[in-house]
């Protein structure tokens, strides 16, 4: 049994280099955007930031879920998730939040004292929606995620070194705490960073909608990493069709839950038909954003749903990869659909900065992800369930 000791494919190195170049090009473009169209820059940046965060934080959420449930599907991809949601990538997310912290006046209506003073609802929400509290909470979310990632990175390293079987148990305990802490913190992060773009409007399922989108991003990432690491005659990661099948099934389930949450929000607002709630959908269903909404439902739900029904597609990394790419694009579209109409309710907008931001942030994240992949063996050698997870049926 020498499984998992095959060297990483060269593609990892290449991808890291592509990520770095894309990141630098993207940053240069963002710099040009800062000089030419500062308002647009912050909007595009927020979307791009949430897209990149979806990869890192989504992987953190899926990793926590794995430690609570302990399935074979998670043992084989633990290092992929740990690399995607490392203290490094989430630390980068914290640094990358700075432009948003500096751009609050461009992004958030409720940061303007004169607007709040003349608006009864915003005055009422002031104890929550004010800048010091916003920045404090933002810092707290980011620190919490970094701490969670650091705890698991450390436990994982100790497990590799000592082989202490009790570490798996403490990971499970941390996982249970982490799932609750993660879902609560990301819910409020979604409220603060995105829902408060239209501060009169509110939806309690908004946070879960964003979180499940991140889970979709994370499983799409896992599918692509499986293609990179698990293919060929001597794969770096010994992925079997049944592992891929599980990853595909999770991706399928998350896509369905995304649609379920999205529809739940819609049907409740549609049924209630209250003016303060329907604003979200009047711009997205009737006017300039109608086509975007239809395309989003097709690309984020209908098409992946139909494709992922197939058992054979879920059991092959090559067949799963195009669906994963589609979903990573749909993730960006979903976030654009959430953010952009807040600034332009009556006209569809797509700016070149909308593409530069995910390029910059995603590129740098990709570089850090490949560094994480290289840092550790791809299989947790002392994981108590590793043998079972790798056993052929």
């Amino acid at each position: 049994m020498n499984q998992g000791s095959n060297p990483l494919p060269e593609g990892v190195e290449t991808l890291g280099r592509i990520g770095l170049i894309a990141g630098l090009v993207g940053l240069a473009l963002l710099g040009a955007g800062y000089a030419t169209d500062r308002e647009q820059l912050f909007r595009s940046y927020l979307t791009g930031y949430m897209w990149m965060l979806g990869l890192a934080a989504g992987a953190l959420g899926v990793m926590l879920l794995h430690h609570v449930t302990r399935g074979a599907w998670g043992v084989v991809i633990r290092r992929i998730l740990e690399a995607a949601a490392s203290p490094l990538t989430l630390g980068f997310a914290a640094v990358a939040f700075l432009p948003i912290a500096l751009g609050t006046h461009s992004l958030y209506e409720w940061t303007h004292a004169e607007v709040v003073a003349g608006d009864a609802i915003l005055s009422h929400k002031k104890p929550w929606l004010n800048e010091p509290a916003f920045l404090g909470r933002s810092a707290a979310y980011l620190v919490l995620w970094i701490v969670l990632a650091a705890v698991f990175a450390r436990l994982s390293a100790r497990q590799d070194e000592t082989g202490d079987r009790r570490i798996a148990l403490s990971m499970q305990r941390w996982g249970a705490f982490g799932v609750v802490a993660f879902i609560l913190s990301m819910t409020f992060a979604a409220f603060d960073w995105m829902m408060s773009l239209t501060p009169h409007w509110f939806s309690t399922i908004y946070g879960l909608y964003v979180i499940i989108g991140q889970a979709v991003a994370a499983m799409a990432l896992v599918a692509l990493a499986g293609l990179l690491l698990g293919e060929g005659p001597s794969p770096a990661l010994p992925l079997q069709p049944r592992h891929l099948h599980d990853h595909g099934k999770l991706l399928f389930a998350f896509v369905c839950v995304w649609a379920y949450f999205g529809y739940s929000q819609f049907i409740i607002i549609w049924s209630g038909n209250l003016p303060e709630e329907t604003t979200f959908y009047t711009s997205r269903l009737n006017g300039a954003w109608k086509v975007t909404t239809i395309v989003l439902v097709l690309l984020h739900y209908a098409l992946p749903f139909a494709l992922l029904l197939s058992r054979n597609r879920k059991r092959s990394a090559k067949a799963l990869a195009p669906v994963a790419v589609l979903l990573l694009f749909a993730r960006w579209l979903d976030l654009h659909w959430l953010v952009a109409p807040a600034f332009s309710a009556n006209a569809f907008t797509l700016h070149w900065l909308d593409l530069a931001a995910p390029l910059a942030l995603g590129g740098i994240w990709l570089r850090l992800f490949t560094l994480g992949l290289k840092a550790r063996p791809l299989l947790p050698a002392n994981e108590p369930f590793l043998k079972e997870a790798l056993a052929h049926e």
Partner: protein
Amino acid sequence: MHGTHPEPSLHGVLAEFRTPDELLAAIESARAAGYTKLDAYTPYPIEKVLDALDLHHSKVPLLTLGAAIFGAVAVFSFAYWASAIDYPLNIGGRPLNSWPAFIPATFEGAVFHGGLAAALGMLVLNGLPRPHHPVFEVKRFVEHASKDGYFLLVEAEDPQFDVSAVRRLLEGLGPVEVNDLEN
């Protein structure tokens, strides 16, 4: 039953093996000899046995999909007919064809019909419920099939079936024992 069939018809020939690997080798040999109507009994699911017998291609998923699509279309059509044609009612000024309100029931209709088709389709296609089966006539099958015995059945329905040839083949594979099964 007695007296009607002076010569009872044959269901097949059953051989018992000690290990999954012996069973797998037996399946390979039987398939290589051209037999197609094979069945295997193991104490726990063995993926490779399913592969060897080519049992993965069930019709249940297709039935489920068809029934789910039917359920969705049927429930949506019914909701449309009831709300917009048969009993048009103005609810809160909404259009008569308020399709968003029909979606939850449509979804449930798809799930319900799909689930029902999966369960019933499974029963119809695998022949359950079945109170008795010829394999239960074999004493060692009753004692070992759920414990530590790996059984291969060559069914008499097989176009190539010939008792003595099948027995010769199976006995040459080192079984614990070989039994003819009567219907």
